């Protein structure tokens, strides 16, 4: 897990930002690193870790933005990644970003980081919100209680960040002897006994942290220690459980909160009367069981309207740009078939990525970041939770499903907001069945254009019913139990444009570095197939499916190309039959079956690749097969039914 590069890390400094969600880590990260950051993945885990580099006095400083978490247990992959990062990569300093206006609960997390024994600096961020609530915090006292530097910051206004950075560098260069705030007497005694028993051994973490983790029955750490220590642990845990009458994990949580409460009482002071909390007033409307859904629908409709209006405009514009370049390219003095291959095989793939996908995704991400930054995304999760539970996932999964209407690939990345793998897989499967913009193009260009808008709506409706039943099915037959929703409701905030643009940019960059090569390569393969005149063989092999679906084999063949990029189905249909009057090729019933099957029959290659990256090869293949078989069955049934109408 160490990348084996510990040595090359020596000459540079690593600073990690850790803290709860929504405390301002990413804003601080962006303010510190400026423009140049990359999103990495912790090996084997699908949690995003953002990294950026700063040069200062000839020192190269690596800044890492860790995911937002509430504890260092193993509830979610994000927690595991964060603690592995701190323990194994050993950042020189961990900056714990704290929401000053919720000091009490944030201390709960901070105390755990201190236990690890890593050098820590505390950023008391969102200090403006604390002052608005009419409070102040005694910094000196907090510093002396925690034995680490504490800096007041207001990240969005760039206040205090310079001092934070300087004190972080100072911390990195000095020696640090951890001095932990103490828990209650009974538990401290037993922690010390365990620490003593651990003294002959050598570990990456402080013995105190390890002792506490062992008391918590943390499986990852239980693996590290010999049996007799576990026996001692069992004995000590039992004693504590008898004294407190609670399970040991609960006791430790209670102790941490008791400590957090003592510290808070000592440092937090009321200054003025509290001003009213507008968030709650807004929520009375936006979370209202009737008006709330009304607004949600309005907002979603508005979003789709903007995305598709703006997207098709941008798409036409970029497509036109490439089209106008084509004659110039074709007049170059080069071998004809080479030119065709370069243009149709390579450039066309780029056109697809930048002319078809980008125009829809960019505005989509922009709006999504806006909703996220305003705090509304959490409200969407709240409103949709009841419904989403019916299909085995909770409210947070609604957001990736919405994202899917733009493109499935980032939606699968977006399922990372879910805590459990099971939830992520269900949400991802459903996401791949949501009609992305490419599939909407097909439904509009084929079904709506030749059968009428009613039939297009019917296909969407069929698809949504289908998604619902697949959800029911997966929830019923996938191993494991559904996870319930436990979510902090952030305050509403005025979104900051700079931050929205930044977030959008980072997301786009990640998407394109991932998807562009796949789109271009698969496009080139397709062109190769055509140039090598292999199509007749392919046509032969799709015959059985053509029979099931009641479609002409040549039309069925276009579905193979659709697996590369969904909108290719229509393009190839026009190419093969040399007409875009599809009514000449297919009967109305065939158009309907074709439209329905293209919606669901397979995820496109970029989506499959993303599934593989997030869940492994086996799951990616299983999902693909599952959807293919299901779509053939449903397409076949639809075909039969339509014959009788």
């Amino acid at each position, binding site marked *: 897990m160490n990348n084996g590069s510990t040595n090359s890390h020596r000459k540079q400094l690593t600073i990690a930002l850790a803290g709860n969600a929504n405390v301002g880590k990413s804003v601080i990260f962006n303010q510190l690193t400026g423009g140049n950051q990359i999103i990495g993945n912790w090996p084997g885990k699908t949690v995003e870790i953002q990294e950026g580099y700063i040069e200062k006095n000839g020192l190269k400083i690596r800044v890492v933005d860790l995911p937002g978490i509430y*504890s260092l247990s193993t509830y979610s992959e994000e927690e595991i990644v964060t603690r592995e990062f701190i323990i194994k990569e050993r950042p020189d300093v961990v900056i714990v970003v704290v929401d000053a206006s919720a000091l009490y609960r944030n201390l709960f997390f901070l105390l755990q980081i201190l236990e690890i024994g890593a050098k820590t600096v505390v950023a008391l961020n969102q200090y403006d919100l604390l002052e608005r609530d009419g409070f102040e915090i005694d910094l000196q006292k907090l510093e002396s209680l925690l034995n680490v530097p504490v800096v007041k910051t207001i990240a969005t206004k760039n206040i205090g960040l310079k001092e934070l950075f300087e004190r972080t560098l100072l911390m990195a260069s000095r020696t640090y002897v951890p001095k932990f705030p103490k828990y209650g007497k009974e538990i401290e005694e037993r922690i010390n006994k365990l620490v003593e028993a651990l003294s002959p051994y050598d570990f990456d973490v402080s013995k105190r942290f390890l002792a506490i983790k062992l008391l918590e029955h943390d499986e990852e750490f239980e693996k590290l220690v010999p049996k007799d220590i576990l026996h001692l642990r069992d004995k000590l845990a039992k004693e504590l459980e008898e004294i407190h009458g609670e399970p040991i994990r609960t006791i430790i949580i209670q102790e941490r909160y008791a400590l957090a409460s003592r510290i808070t009482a000592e440092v937090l002071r009321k200054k003025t009367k509290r001003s009213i909390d507008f968030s709650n007033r807004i929520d009375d409307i936006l979370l209202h069981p009737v008006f709330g859904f009304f607004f949600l629908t309005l907002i979603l409709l508005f979003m789709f309207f903007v995305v598709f209006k703006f997207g098709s405009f941008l798409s036409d514009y970029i497509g036109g740009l490439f089209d106008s370049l084509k004659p110039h390219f074709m007049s170059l003095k080069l071998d004809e078939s080479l030119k065709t291959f370069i243009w149709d095989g390579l450039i066309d793939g780029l056109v697809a990525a930048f002319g078809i996908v980008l125009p829809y995704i960019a505005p989509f991400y922009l709006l999504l970041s806006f909703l996220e930054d305003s705090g509304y995304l959490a409200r969407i999760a709240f409103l949709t939770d009841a419904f989403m539970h019916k299909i085995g996932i909770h409210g947070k999964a609604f957001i990736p499903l919405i994202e899917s209407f733009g493109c499935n690939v980032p939606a699968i990345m977006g399922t990372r907001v879910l805590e459990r793998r099971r939830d992520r897989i269900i949400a991802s499967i459903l996401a791949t069945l949501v009609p992305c913009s490419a599939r909407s193009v097909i439904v509009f260009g084929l079904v709506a254009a030749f059968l009428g808008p009613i039939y297009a709506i019917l296909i969407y409706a069929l698809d949504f019913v289908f998604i619902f039943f697949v959800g029911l099915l997966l929830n019923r037959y996938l191993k494991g139990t559904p996870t319930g929703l436990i979510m902090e409701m952030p305050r509403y905030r005025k979104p900051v444009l700079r931050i929205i643009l930044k977030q959008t940019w980072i997301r786009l960059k990640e998407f394109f570095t991932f998807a562009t090569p796949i789109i271009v390569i698969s496009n080139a393969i397709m062109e190769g197939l055509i140039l090598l005149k292999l199509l007749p063989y392919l046509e032969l092999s799709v015959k059985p499916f053509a029979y099931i679906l009641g479609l002409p084999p040549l039309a069925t063949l276009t579905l193979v190309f659709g697996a590369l990029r969904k909108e290719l189905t229509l393009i190839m249909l026009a190419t093969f039959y040399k007409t875009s009057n599809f009514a000449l090729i297919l009967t109305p019933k065939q158009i309907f079956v074709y439209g329905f099957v293209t919606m669901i029959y397979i995820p496109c290659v970029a989506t499959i690749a993303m599934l593989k990256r997030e869940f492994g090869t086996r799951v990616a293949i299983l999902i693909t097969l599952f959807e293919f078989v299901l779509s053939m069955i449903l397409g076949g049934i639809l075909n039969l039914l339509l014959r009788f109408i």
Partner: protein
Amino acid sequence: MYETLDRVKANRIVKVVDFVVPKHHIHIPQYIVRLQEMGVLKGEIIEVRRNTGIGPIEINVKGTKLAIGRGIASKIIVEEVNE
């Protein structure tokens, strides 16, 4: 009177009394640990801010607002506190 959190009406103040834990569990379930880590501990006084009968329950605990799904809320036993 004891009741589960999902049945408490909005704008009531309640005290957490206990959690419903399935009998056969050796350890307490993860979601209860998570609740406790978020501050929903025995003895804690919480304010129910929103409960419309469908969808999650919104509570105020330790100065933060938390949305809890109905399923999980039905595992939290509370008692009304008289102000």
